[in-house]
């Protein structure tokens, strides 16, 4: 069998992944397959009361099943690490380190569960906290998360997560009249 024929035989299998829009379940399955990842992010916060945006950047670390760490390296040094139900907040430049239950901080929890649930590919966990909307094009997918809790909606109205295949590309958080845009790329 020639190489061409062999390649042609594989086409039916490759085809859906290449051309058709993936379903939410397929995206989640793909994300769940990545057990650990390291990404760089840049973030720009727009707060209506401020005249200028608040940019910052750093790294994101993910380790399945439930460890997520957001390490901001510029302009401040800040680490937010989540494992299970515990959140550790650390600002080395201020000598501040605090640990508390995620459940005590609903606003933080809303953000954490959005990113964590997506990276874990855990649709059930996402649906526990949000109404999940989904759309996809051949270029990528887009998930719109609306918090179920009224209290949380007071601070966070909508989270939009975008990605391509098994990669996360961005997280936009809208709330309190402002928006926080995070761009994500794999770190080398």
């Amino acid at each position, binding site marked *: 069998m020639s190489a061409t024929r062999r390649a042609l035989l594989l086409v039916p299998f490759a085809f859906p992944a290449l051309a058709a829009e993936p379903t939410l379940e397929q995206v989640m399955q793909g994300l769940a397959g990545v057990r650990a990842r390291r990404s760089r992010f840049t973030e720009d*916060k727009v*707060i*209506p*009361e*401020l*005249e*200028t945006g*608040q940019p*910052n950047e750093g790294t994101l670390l993910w380790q399945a099943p439930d460890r997520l760490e*957001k390490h*901001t390296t510029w*302009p*401040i040094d*800040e680490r*937010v690490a989540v494992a299970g*139900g*515990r959140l550790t*907040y650390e*600002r080395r430049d201020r000598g501040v380190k605090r640990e*508390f*239950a995620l*459940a*005590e*901080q609903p*606003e*933080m929890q809303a*953000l954490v569960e959005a990113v964590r649930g997506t990276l874990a590919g855990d649709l059930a966990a996402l649906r526990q906290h949000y109404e999940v909307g989904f759309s996809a094009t051949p270029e990528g997918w887009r998930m719109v998360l609306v918090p179920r809790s009224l*209290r949380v909606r*007071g*601070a*966070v109205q909508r989270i939009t997560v975008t990605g391509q295949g098994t990669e996360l590309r961005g997280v936009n*958080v809208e*709330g*309190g009249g*402002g928006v*926080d845009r995070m761009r994500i790329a794999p770190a080398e």
Partner: protein
Amino acid sequence: MTRLLLLLAVLAGLGGVLGWLAPPRADLAEFLPPGRTPASAFLLRELQSGAATTLLLAAIEGAPRAELARLSRETAAGLRASGRFGFVGDGSLRLEESEQALLFRYRYLLSPETRPEAFTAAALRPKLEALLDGLRSAASPLLARYGFADPTGAFLGLAAAWLGESHVAAEDGAWFAPGEVPRVLLVARGQGAGLDAEAQRLAIAAFRAAFAAARPPPGARLLLSGPGVFAAEAAATIERDVRRLTLLATLLLAGFLVWRFRSLAVLALVAVPLLAATLAGYAAVVALYGSVHAIALGFGVTMLGVVVDYPILLLTLRRRDEPLGAAATRIWPTLRLSAVAAAAGLLAMVGSGLPGLVQTGIFAGAGLLVAAATTRWLLPRLVPEEARLLARPMHLSLATLRGRPLPALAVLAAAAAVLLATGGPDRQRDLAALSPVPAAQQALDAELRGQLGAPDVRSLFVIGPMATEGEMLQRAEALGAAAQALVARGLLTGLDLPSRYLPSPALQASRQAALPEEATLAAALREAAAGLPFRPTAFDRFIAAVAESRGLQPLDLATLAAGAPTIAARLSPLVSRHGAEIWGIAPATGVADPAALEAGAAGLGLPSVLFLDVKLELERLLAAYGRATLGWALAGAGVVLGLLVLGLGRFGRALVVAAPIGGAVLITLAVLTLLGEALSLFHLAALLLLAGLAIDYALFLAAGRATPGEAREDATEDATQDTTLGAVLTCAVSTLLTFGMLSLSETPVLHGIGLTVTIGVAAAFLLACAFSPRGPQRRPGRGS
């Protein structure tokens, strides 16, 4: 026989009617004494019905951590849903939305940071810089929510001060206790007074139901503690103990009596005076007090154990072919003296001033006299002439004990030496040891309190009585300021004042006055924000809130309670209402030397502020009652001796009778000392009971020889002595069987009484033997 059973039925029926007309009261509060000083009166009232008494502490253990957290959350949810608890605390403690809104609205009236200088540009500038810094951080959603409306941080400061002091690590929405074994903690405050046994029982049942509804896995345990649990537990333990031990003791006693008299009818005969005595005691207390306390009833019946002796003595001392009536007439002078002297000995209980003990004393005193009369006049009519109720003769080698005062005196000297050398038994100073609550339960309570960081409130300041809430809060604020001097001296580390949660209306008004005018604040903000990237409108909500705060009606307790349950739950234990009076309570922390703090507090010179150390005050109270009781016990002993002299006609003979009584008390005290028992009021009561029993033994053994109208032949003499000895031994064995059982009880009070009486009765019997005169001839091994 029919007559006997009929009478028993009538007596039981009367008892039923009496119990129905005036049922015993189980309210522990009524058993406790009224206070004698303002401090003790307040303390005792708080102990009986204060907010602290409705606290339930709980722990769940015996499952993995995640499972425990789930159990904690679901049990707490069940408790809240039950509506039986004013407050439920678990790891999920946080302010609800509506509560936050209320406190947020009043933030500038509540915050101690509200001072004129806090709203100047110079003070605002660093606040704005900090806000900007926070907005860059991951916590920005939280800061964006509060920071622009409250850049001074008044609200977050308040929340941190009110809620951020928990010593327990919250994890997964549950409080985990420190330590190796995973254990979650819960706190609930019930509604209704703490010593209201029924309300407590329902609250505890609701707690257990909520736990069961959370589907605990096998092995998971719910541990409950708190004054309410104590009350219920104490009642249950005493009841269980008494029922079990009474049943055992009754069976043993019945078996012994049936064996001794070879007749079942003897049981009915013994029951008649006991039943009549109980009825009389009950009626007497009801007539004087309107009702009988359940504990007084329990102790009273216990003390009436003495009257079992009376029919036994009558039956045993009855001679062959002697009609029972004649025997009753013959022993009556001795029996009468014995009963009157024993009743006089109870004087100490009546004089103690403790309502519970007074009732017990009256109950037992009336019962004793009625039992003696019943034995004298009623019993002989109940037994047909032809009935042969005679004691089985005993072969008593014990007779060798008779008339040996010298060894007895040696034993007494040894006992006195022990007492002198050791200084006597320790007096029980700890009220906890008097508590019928088992020690294990008390230890659990201490452990849970320690783990929750909610130690039992020991030292506190009492503010009041005040006419209004505002005055009370204002006085609390004055105390807070004055106490700084005591903190500086290291006498305490802190004070949890009611004004910490709710400032007085006057202070709130002064804070309103400190708030700047709208234009002034706007100008200060402009200056403070110079060069910072805030939009001009960024702090509009702040300016509006300050303007609104200036016109607010000061927050009061009722509004706080309605709108802010979490904070109100913190505040409510610190406020106590009694009629129209209102009191504030301020627990002190870090008190090393309560006596020094008491002296320091007296030096503050604040009117209507009282320092109270619970342990110190209770010790003083107990010591005062102890002194009173001791004084009355001595008076009682004097009366008993007087009665004996009067009844026996000669001082010397009275002394022969009194020596075993006093000696038994002496030996009992010495043995209790050696056993390391600390003496409480209940031991004292037991000593009185013991003295009553010893009077019987000593009188009858002493009277055994010279009963009037008795034949004077040696053989008869000796036989009489043997019979008397047998009679008294029967009494002593009966008592030992009953009280020996009681000493096995796990309830400290019952154990104390049982032990005291058991030791004492053995001593009293042997001493009475030893001091009683010996017959001129002795024929060992003789029987008939």
